[in-house]
């Protein structure tokens, strides 16, 4: 019994626990402004937000590259200010800008890093080889990194973070500058790491499809604060559901649908826009509805709610605060024009 208690206590500990976390740079910029959030073990957590929102600063406080000004930050229960070295031992970090040593080979970069992370000598070469294979760099392992392309450096960067098999991986815009297939490869390895080793992953990105694809939960930061936090599903629901546009053979005079189908938000006779919570399920119902009213449907298109909308709504910048105030109408206009 006591065994179980101990275990459950361990797995209950949050991977990352931030409480009123604040960073004020010397020139009194409040880069991170009293944020609180908690990342569960085994979770893939996305940190989104416009340029200058404070994402990188938040990550730097975790990896102890910059001191926090106030608040609390625990990594697997360990206080970053009190035990920085222990904290770094549990973390892997891919910085936003390239930081591999271009005057060394890829293999050497991994070797040095493995040594500095105290990877067991017996496992070292195996791990390096795996990391290189994982990131598809085996063939060029003994080339100087300065002869690599930007994307290859990026992949090496990720390989480096994998060598010490961290419990928590901090990825600051890892897929920046990657071609679509490398990007997919990186996504695959992130998921694989998460599933096979239970690695907790905190990722920042400006690519909403990436966040949607990978993250269990997302926090959108804006001006140093967390504007909203939730699962991608929750967030999308927050900006409303999917919009379905039906083009009809004859004008329709119906003013409303049964509630469970959706709500008409725009009706210009032959083209009707319907707001639904789940577009795919609503399409057959809508088709049936018109058929039962004797109206021919010529085509149906769907405009799914996506994280871009969520981002636009919450990620305000100092300039143009009101630009995206009425996100629904923006999206409606977009739908109209794109017809």
């Amino acid at each position: 019994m006591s065994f179980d208690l101990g275990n459950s206590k361990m797995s209950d500990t949050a991977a990352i626990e931030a409480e009123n976390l604040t960073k004020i740079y010397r020139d009194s910029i409040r880069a991170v402004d009293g944020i609180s959030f908690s990342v569960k073990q085994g979770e893939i957590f996305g940190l989104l937000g416009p340029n200058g929102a404070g994402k990188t600063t938040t990550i730097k406080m975790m990896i102890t590259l910059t001191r926090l000004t106030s608040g609390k930050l625990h990594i697997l229960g360990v206080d970053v200010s009190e035990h920085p070295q222990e904290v770094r031992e549990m973390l892997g970090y891919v910085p936003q800008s390239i930081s591999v040593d271009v005057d060394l080979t890829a293999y050497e970069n991994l070797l040095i890093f493995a040594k500095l992370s105290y990877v067991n000598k017996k496992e070292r070469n195996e791990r390096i080889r795996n990391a290189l294979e994982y990131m598809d760099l085996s063939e060029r392992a003994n080339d100087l990194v300065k002869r690599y392309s930007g994307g290859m450096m990026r992949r090496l960067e990720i390989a480096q973070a994998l060598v010490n098999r961290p419990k928590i991986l901090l990825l600051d815009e890892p897929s920046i500058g990657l071609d679509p297939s490398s990007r997919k490869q990186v996504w695959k390895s992130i998921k694989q790491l998460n599933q096979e080793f239970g690695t907790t992953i905190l990722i920042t990105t400006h690519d909403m499809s990436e966040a949607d694809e990978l993250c269990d939960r997302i926090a959108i930061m804006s001006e140093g604060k967390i504007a909203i936090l939730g699962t991608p599903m929750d967030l999308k629901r927050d900006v409303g559901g999917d919009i379905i546009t039906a083009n009809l053979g004859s004008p329709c005079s119906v003013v409303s649908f049964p509630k469970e189908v959706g709500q008409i938000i725009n009706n210009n006779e032959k083209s009707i826009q319907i707001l639904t919570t789940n577009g795919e399920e609503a399409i057959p119902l809508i088709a049936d509805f018109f058929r039962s009213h004797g109206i021919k449907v010529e085509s149906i298109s769907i405009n799914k709610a996506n994280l871009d909308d969520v981002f636009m709504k919450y990620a305000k910048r100092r300039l143009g605060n009101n630009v995206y105030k009425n996100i629904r109408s923006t999206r409606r206009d977009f739908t109209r024009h794109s017809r």
Partner: protein
Amino acid sequence: MNVTRFIKSSITVAEMEARKIRHDSAELWTRAIQPALWLLIFGETFNAIRAMPTGNFSYMQFITPGILAQSVLFISIFYGITVVWERDVGIITKLLSTPSPRSSIVLGKSLAASLRGVFQALMIFALALLLGVKIRFDLPDILGVFAVVVLFAMCFSSLSMLLASYMKTRDRMMGIGQALTMPLFFASNAIYPISIMPIWLQYVSIANPLSYVVDAIRSMLLEGTYQNLPVDILALLVFTTIFVTLASRTIKKLLE
């Protein structure tokens, strides 16, 4: 702190430098040009005109240890520039994000500087042989010289890193380096004996660490005497420890 881990990390950081040198050793050779010119032009000239009261030794013999110390001083005092450059390309970020203690990173970097110092010493020994300068090539003497060179480079490169944490840019470090090397070099016994200096400068040179380093190297390479050696080495050790400790606390400032 775990001592074996500490040592391992320091050596790894130095290994990083060694591997870079292996890939591209051009810099090592270009670094040898300046001391070579000092020996060839300055040394040979003053050797010929016999203007310096250098006792039982020829001027070339006198100046060789001085130029050796000078070239190691240059390398280590400007080592902060290398570190600032490494900060700019993200390498310092990467190093500081590893679990290795920061002091081991700084110590490793100073070991890296001393590696370059050792190459410099080798180069000057080769040059001295080539020019037929009579210096003692006994094993204990040579080992002693290398020990002093290593400690000297560690001491001043860690001082340089300490300064770099505050200066933060290459330009400023360049300025600081030049402002330091000139008085250190000319107010020392590297290229002329202390006895010919004006009195006030003699006092300066007594407080000048470079004088002690030159003295130690000179006594080994020319006279084969060691009585000052323990004190010199101790002094270097103490200062190295102080600078490494301070620099490992401040190095994070480089990232801000």
